[in-house]
């Protein structure tokens, strides 16, 4: 009996020892050396549950009050939550709030950043005190580098907790991200009449409350990219001079969610991989900036977002170096110059008067040591020298060199004399001079594209008898052109 027990025990112990040895052999790995460094950043998914998770002590980092952001709007609410005990509460200001008329903030990771490559969406629960609209929600903005922003615009809330999804385009780019969350929300449009062009239309809005909860990154596995776009999906064709740049804009991704809804998000260029079919003509960088490096030839710029080819393209033909305007040959003694590198200008003209309703972008550019005035999207604007009017009695013509991008370019020049009261007076309904003002109008058309066209406009019509207080040249249409060598002269 005694012996049997012993034998049984021995077998048992051998089995145990063998078993343990086996476990050790299977589980045994070499220890990490002290020099080993973590290859990736933390993958923490939660941003806010009942408390902020891994965020800076400041928690709500508000947008700049200088742009109207109200830093007092943010807080938490222990009486409302989707899950748990607390939620984030935004008391969105009304249109007259002295502390700021909208609420906007970001949350930033308190560490070096998170590795988000394993997630495919940012999700959160939200409700509103009324069915207001979140102007913008997103991530990737950290107010430091802002390298990979994504934003979803105009999410309408309900008064009930609902879940919202912001898909992550191409998560493999997000190896180290500090911008965890962004939200911007304005007053509630009670009458549904808000119009960004009419500042007045917001004055009948009201404040409201937004609650947010369970903000986190998730790997849903249930989203599908159904579209990606550059240039809003358009195929554009343009000609550009060498050493100029164009930025690819209009970037978005549309994702189908498990709910069947399609969500479109604005996407930073850094998520896309851009390609130039002929890099000798133009290159494109990771920010979508196209640089025309060649003197001739054509290239097509396209992009890929993750595995999806983006709709839209830009075909660019290089035009060579931008040509300088012809050097005027009128003797200086016969010239009163408004803008020219060849003469001393007698006035300091204002090229950006900012007329109400004007869509014009005008700027003075320097290329190759010469200055030009470029106009884009001109409906109406003016070259103003009414604070220092020119006596043109001895002058016979207005000279202008105009560079037209295509054959359809046409610009009306209205040469304005502002009369002895030296004030510009215009009938705001008809656009015609009023008071003691007169003008003479000529439309320049039939211009040769991609070349300087030298035009001499005679000072005739109403200017025949009144041109001693020339104060402005009003420019109508175009819509895009470049001017140089603007001066009055006589022969």
């Amino acid at each position, binding site marked *: 009996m005694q*012996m*049997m027990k012993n*034998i*049984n025990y021995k*077998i048992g112990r051998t089995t145990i020892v063998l078993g343990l040895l086996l476990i050790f052999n299977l589980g045994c790995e070499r220890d990490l050396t002290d020099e080993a460094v973590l290859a990736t950043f933390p993958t923490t998914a939660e941003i806010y549950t009942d408390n902020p998770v891994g965020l800076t002590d400041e928690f709500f980092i508000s947008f700049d009050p200088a742009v109207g952001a109200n830093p007092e709007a943010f807080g938490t609410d222990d009486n409302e939550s989707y899950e748990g005990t607390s939620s984030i509460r935004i008391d969105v200001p009304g249109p007259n709030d002295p502390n700021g008329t909208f609420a906007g903030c970001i949350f930033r990771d308190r560490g070096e950043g998170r590795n988000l490559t394993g997630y495919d969406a940012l999700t959160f629960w939200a409700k509103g005190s009324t069915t207001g609209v979140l102007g913008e929600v997103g991530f990737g903005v950290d107010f430091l580098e802002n390298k990979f922003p994504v934003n979803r615009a105009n999410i309408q809330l309900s008064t009930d907790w609902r879940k919202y999804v912001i898909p992550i385009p191409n998560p493999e780019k997000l190896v180290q991200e500090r911008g965890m969350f962004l939200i911007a929300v304005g007053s509630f449009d009670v009458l549904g009449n808000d119009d960004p062009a009419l500042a007045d239309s917001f004055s009948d809005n009201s404040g409201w409350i937004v609650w947010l909860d369970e903000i986190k990154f998730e*790997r*849903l*596995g*249930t989203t*599908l990219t*159904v579209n990606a776009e550059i240039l809003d999906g358009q195929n554009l064709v343009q000609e550009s001079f060498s050493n100029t740049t164009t930025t690819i804009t209009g970037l978005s991704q549309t994702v*189908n969610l*498990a*709910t*069947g809804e*399609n969500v479109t998000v604005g996407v930073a260029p850094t998520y896309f991989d851009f390609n130039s079919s002929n890099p000798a003509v133009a290159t494109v960088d990771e920010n979508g900036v196209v640089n025309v490096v060649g003197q001739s030839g054509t290239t097509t710029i396209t992009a890929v977002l993750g595995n999806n080819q983006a709709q839209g393209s830009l075909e660019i033909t290089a035009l060579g170096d931008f040509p300088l305007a012809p050097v005027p040959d009128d003797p200086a003694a016969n010239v009163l110059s408004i803008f020219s590198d060849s003469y001393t200008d007698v006035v300091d003209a204002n090229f950006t008067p900012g007329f109400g309703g004007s869509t014009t972008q005008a700027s003075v550019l320097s290329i190759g040591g010469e200055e030009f005035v470029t106009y884009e999207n001109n409906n109406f604007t003016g070259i103003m020298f009414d604070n220092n009017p020119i006596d043109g009695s001895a002058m016979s013509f207005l000279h202008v060199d105009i560079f037209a991008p295509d054959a359809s370019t046409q610009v009306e020049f209205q040469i304005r004399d502002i009369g002895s009261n030296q004030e510009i007076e215009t009938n705001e309904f008809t656009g015609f001079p009023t008071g003691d003002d007169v003008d003479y109008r000529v439309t320049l058309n039939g211009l040769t594209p991609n070349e300087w066209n030298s035009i001499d406009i005679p000072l005739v019509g109403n200017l025949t008898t009144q041109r001693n207080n020339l104060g402005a040249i009003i420019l109508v249409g175009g819509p895009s052109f470049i001017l140089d060598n603007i001066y009055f002269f006589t022969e």
Partner: protein
Amino acid sequence: MKQMKILKSILACAVLLAGTLLITNCEVDETQTVTNFENLVMADEFDVDGAPDPTLWTYDIGDGSAEGIPGWGNNELQYYTDRPENVKVENGLLVITAREEAFDGSSYTSARITTQNLFEQQYGRFEARIRMPLGKGIWPAFWLLGNDCDINPWPQCGEIDVMEYLGDAPTIVFGSAHGPGYNAGDSISKEYELENDRFDTGFHVFGIEWGPDYINYYVDDELYQQITPETTAEEAVDNVPNPGEWVFNRPFYIILNIAVGGNLPGAPNEDTQFPQRMYVDYVRVYN
């Protein structure tokens, strides 16, 4: 002798251990009838490019008017054709394509192929491996109809929907049965929701196991619904002839189609991109 006793006790331990393992792995719920139909009776692997095998498949054509049910009974919007634009076999797959195009008074075309009068079976396992289309208004299905609907008008002839899917809910499929008192809006039906995945990004297996007094519905390896004569008797409405009668006791044939629009899915909207395709890797029937 001592050694024999030791050996016996070791053996006893081993048997005990093995027995425990067997018992813990084998869960048999008293209320389920589990069977395996392993004898392959019919298979279409869709390996020959061109039109679907005419010895197995025929076509329903039109918008249903010719059958006396315009809109195929559901206010569906498509006109079914047998053109390759709507149905063909290619690269090892059956491809049914729904298109937005004007055709004979309809705004959409698609295809509905069936094994009516070519293949039918009573009981057994009916299975297909399918990848779904996407979009509001898109309604693909893999289903069976009783073979005597001309003498016993539907729902008396019975309908088994092995898989239906609505394109605006890409993670959900449902399986149903229709019969007297439990048809159309009153059909017996259950949804299956895919976790962390969608039905339009890959292939999944949809099937039924059907015996004299049960139909089991499964997706991939998950059984998600069982219907029995007790179910139909219990759930049927009773203001019809033969309410709740178990009608799944005759041969049924197979149907594969994509419908566009209709009472269940609603019409396509501006987000629905055409063409939309359902890809079927195989259809297999066992007994």
